[in-house]
């Protein structure tokens, strides 16, 4: 039972003005400024004039920028996929644990997420170096496998190389994907968990009782029911991954630049604000597009269930 604003104008203004005013001044106005700048050109080192030119938008379609955009989408897509594949079973474990264990398992997953993003990315530097901990672990596993082969008498079969060549993670796409998965995994788990937690388990029981196997039940009943959560998790992981600045910057070593790194360069070094503005607006439009698609798919599903009911 909500009140109409007109009934209590004083209370309405008192609660509405500060927040909305703040957003208009420090959110809408700044966005309008980059919109203006994106149609502008540099007239001197620090002066930008809005001339209505489309040059900045044309430059986005230059092969170099398109290549970067395509790489950003690829990296974000692969990272999202990995997050979903790892995150889904993890969410499943948490959602089906005992009521007492649940909050603790959730805390276990969320705790690293509350640690500073920069610190987490920095921590990966130590893990991913050619002499880093991950390569050490791989060397150790390699040695163990060789010994195992020795024991069963297959060491001469040439299944494994004599020496382990360290994998280069830093400065490669693989390293950046590792980093993005690392920072966004908890992001992906939460929406998956919340949809699995609310799931009506009697449907699963019905499926088993009617003779479907575990796997069929999982594929044909559980997964379709969890689909809204999977979509939310995908969008919520993909959007920040696409705009990632820190991970490609620190782990990519300038060799795996993504869109955000190009944007940063326009503002901090190249001093090409109009082009940087056009780029960041494009990133913003892609975000809106994804959110709109998400909203549409929600609306369609809602309509379908309505028709059925």
């Amino acid at each position, binding site marked *: *039972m*909500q*009140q*109409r604003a007109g009934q209590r104008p004083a*209370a*309405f203004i008192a*609660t*509405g003005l*500060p*927040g*909305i005013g*703040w*957003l208009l001044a*420090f*959110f*809408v106005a*700044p*966005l309008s*400024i*980059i919109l203006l700048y994106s149609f502008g050109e540099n007239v001197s080192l620090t002066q930008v004039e809005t001339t209505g030119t489309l040059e900045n938008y044309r430059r986005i379609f230059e092969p170099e920028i398109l290549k970067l955009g395509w790489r950003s989408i690829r990296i974000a897509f692969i990272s999202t996929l990995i997050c979903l594949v*790892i995150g889904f*079973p*993890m969410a*499943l*474990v*948490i959602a*089906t*644990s005992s009521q007492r264990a649940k909050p603790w398992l959730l805390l276990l*997953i969320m*705790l*690293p997420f*509350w*640690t*500073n*993003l*920069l*610190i*987490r990315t*920095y*921590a990966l530097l*130590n*893990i991913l*170096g050619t*002499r*880093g*901990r991950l390569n050490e672990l791989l060397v150790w596993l390699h040695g163990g496998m060789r010994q195992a082969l020795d024991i069963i008498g297959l060491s001469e079969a040439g299944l494994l190389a004599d020496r382990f060549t360290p994998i280069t993670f830093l400065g490669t796409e693989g390293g950046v994907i590792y980093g993005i998965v690392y920072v966004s*995994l908890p992001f992906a788990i939460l929406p998956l968990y919340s949809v699995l937690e609310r799931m009506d*388990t009697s449907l699963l029981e019905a499926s088993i009782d009617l003779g479907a196997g*575990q796997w069929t039940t999982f594929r044909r009943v559980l997964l379709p029911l969890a689909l809204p959560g999977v979509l939310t998790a995908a969008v919520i992981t993909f*959007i*920040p991954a696409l*705009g990632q*600045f*820190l991970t490609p910057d620190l782990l990519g070593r300038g060799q795996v630049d993504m869109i*955000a790194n190009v944007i940063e360069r326009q*503002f901090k070094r190249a001093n090409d604000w109009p082009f940087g503005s056009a780029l960041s*607006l494009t990133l*913003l439009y892609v*975000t809106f597009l994804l*959110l709109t698609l998400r909203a549409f798919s929600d609306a369609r599903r809602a309509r379908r269930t309505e028709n059925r009911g």
Partner: protein
Amino acid sequence: MPGVHVAQKIEADTVRFGLLRRVRYEPFNYSRRWSLRTLFLIATVFLYAPIVVLVIFSFNDSRRGGNVIWKGFTTKYYSKAFQNDELMLAFANSLTIALVTMVLAVILGTLTAVLLWRFRFPFKPLVEGLVSLPIVIPEICMGVSLALFFSSMGWMKTGNLMWPLNLVNITIAHITFCFPFAAMVIRARLDSFNRETEEAARDLGASEWRVLKDILIPHMRPGIIAAALLAFTLSLDDFVITFFTSGPNTVTFPVKIYSMVRFSVTPEINAASTVLILMTLILTWLALRYQRALER
């Protein structure tokens, strides 16, 4: 049919004694499966190992490339970090910004939450969209737009003001992305409010102010505290937006660490990071204790 009965009995015994590993699973018993448990464990190690290694290597007695080879135990990098004036200033800046952001984000967030919860007005979906927008847009877009905004308003010079006034740009930026989160959290809490309490109070002659002070705010309190902690952590955590809105004299902790990492990797960075991780842990623990106390 006795055959079926015997088969069931055998299966029950198998389950009871664990003679065969073919356990019949309940449909929603995934947490009992060893394969999934192992995966969960490996993923947890994946999440924690880098942080644990970082903490261990903050005690490494090696000057350069301190993160590769273990050279012995020392705590000297902690004292070095604490004696690094720039680092300590950045730390103080971060805490000051986070505290101011927390207070203002909670005030703005509470008001906005009450607005959206209580009133019907034209263009309400538009306003709701506006409030949730800062949560969803890419950080870099927000950082860039605020940087341009401050510089075109001629506010970039605030960096030369006296401390802590020189932090005003960063604080404004932080409030802008924190308060919508606060509004969401408090708005969610308001859903469980029983409006009859409010009506009863009004019928008994309570003024608008009394209703707010004695009924609405006490109900919102858990939401407000959760929102405050969230705003504090978000502000302390932010790098990208701060990176664009900070000047050479106004550096926060993450921005300072970033420039140190670019310069060279030393155990000192690990030591400083460990201190921040410890702070996060303490905050989380306090939040949990508070939540427990509420449930009791």
